């Protein structure tokens, strides 16, 4: 075999691999589309047979509600309101969580003192705070954002903390031997090791934020996807509720994928599993 032949074979290999992958992806998509069609069909037949639009709206009814809500601009307004709350709450919660985690990880005394507080709060669902937060901050924007901060800060902090526990002992010994300062050890060793864990924590917090914002909006808000759901309930129009559920699912899915893509793209050097 000559050198050119060998190179040609090497180049040919990815081609077949790509083709096999393409075929797999195609069969997967086709199967999914068929199942989607069947599912919508079953839903449609069920809705028509039951014929109680109040209890079970049919697909065209939901599509119609979607069109109306989109046309009036209400859907865009609700979605933006929810997204704004999620993002601002998550940003504060992520930064606060990383700082809290680093603080807990750096000092044994602080960790010991704060343990009872963190353990208790971890198991109190954010919604349990809804009523007190309402009494403290009122029905404004702050109360919703505070709940989202609450729902994200502990996940991020605990993940960051466990990341700091994973630093290799020998690297720490080496740094100590070479006379590094505390700050140097922190920035060269602890922080880079804690980051991938913190990122995982933020990803979980993103999901939690979506969950919390909906309930917070259900309990007292005029705009937002959660408000859309409760309004659909009080005005007895279930299609609106379905529209909100669909939008929530799609948004959540996009947000999660976007997060994974962005961390892989921009924080690659901190993620051991991409190396």
């Amino acid at each position, binding site marked *: 075999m000559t050198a050119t032949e060998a190179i040609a074979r090497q180049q040919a290999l990815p081609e077949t691999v790509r083709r096999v992958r393409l075929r797999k992806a195609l069969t997967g998509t086709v199967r999914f589309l068929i199942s989607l069609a069947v599912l919508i069909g079953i839903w449609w037949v069920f809705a028509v047979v039951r014929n109680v639009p109040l209890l079970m709206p049919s697909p065209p009814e939901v599509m119609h509600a979607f069109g109306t809500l989109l046309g009036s601009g209400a859907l865009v307004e609700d979605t933006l309101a929810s997204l704004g709350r999620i993002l601002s709450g998550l940003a504060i919660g992520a930064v606060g969580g990383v700082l809290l985690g680093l603080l807990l990880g750096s000092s044994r005394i602080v960790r010991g003192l*704060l343990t009872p507080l963190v353990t208790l709060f971890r198991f109190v669902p954010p*919604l349990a705070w809804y009523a007190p937060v309402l009494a403290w901050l009122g029905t404004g924007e702050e109360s919703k954002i505070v709940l989202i901060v609450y729902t994200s800060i502990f996940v991020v902090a605990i993940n960051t903390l466990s990341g700091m526990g994973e630093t290799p002992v020998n690297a720490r010994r080496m740094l100590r031997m070479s006379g590094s300062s505390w700050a140097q050890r922190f920035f060269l060793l602890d922080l880079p090791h804690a980051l991938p864990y913190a990122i995982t924590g933020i990803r979980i917090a993103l999901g939690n934020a979506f969950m919390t914002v909906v*309930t917070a909006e259900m309990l007292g808000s005029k705009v937002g996807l959660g408000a859309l759901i409760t309004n659909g309930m009080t005005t007895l129009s279930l299609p609106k509720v379905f529209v909100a559920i669909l939008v929530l699912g799609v948004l959540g899915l996009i*947000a999660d994928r976007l997060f994974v893509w962005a961390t892989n793209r921009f924080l690659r050097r901190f993620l051991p599993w991409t190396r």
Partner: protein
Amino acid sequence: MRVLSWTRLEPVVLPIIGALLVIGLYGLLASSVANPLVLPPLGQIGDRLVAIFVDPTISVQFLDTLMRIAVGYVGGGLIGVVIGIAVGSGGWARDVVSPYLSFFRSVAPIAWVIPAAIWFGVGTPATIFVAGYAVVFPVAINTIAGLASTPVNRMRMAASAGAGRLARLVRIQLPSAAPYLLTGFRQAIAYAFMTTVGAEMVAATSGLGFLIYDARVLFDTGLMFAGILVLGALGYLADLGFLGLRRTVFRRFVGDAR
């Protein structure tokens, strides 16, 4: 030889000091604010805390919540394992089910509370549905990850020894996936608590979530705080109990316990 050295005492003493500090600071803050609507005094919280367990009208609420969490958790867990096996064993089930899994996972469980209340009834049925819904996903996703992590050689060995697909699933893949399943079920405890309380606030007339939310109407902030403390303690106990089970009943499946 010092038996009571600081390194042994530290993990016990520091949290106790921390808890006392928090309680003390809160007491000072509450008495300086002197507005029981904003920060109820410690005594009032203590009163309500006792009432939750002693007063039969309130302790019913507490038992309601526990029952809903338990039923939703077990039901959702079973469905999650079944879905996880269906997707994780590959084939057409994966192509069909997994897109829906990632879509419905992204819908906040609580968003279903209104349709669930209309379809199954306000209160207990809707709450259980939503709690179960929240539990399905962590369990299913961990099951899938666990099945995928089965060592290939173990599967090959079983296949060459004549084990069929079902036998391989039951005797090789599921035991290999057990640590992942345990992780999923542990995560699911928190989700079950979170959604049950949320659903009780929106669409129920009993339960701890309802109690906390209803206390707002009566301006009984002490009861809110007592409810929050009970929820925190319950969640903590459930997690401890689960860890205990992991160390005893499921010991043989857990790598780090050996």
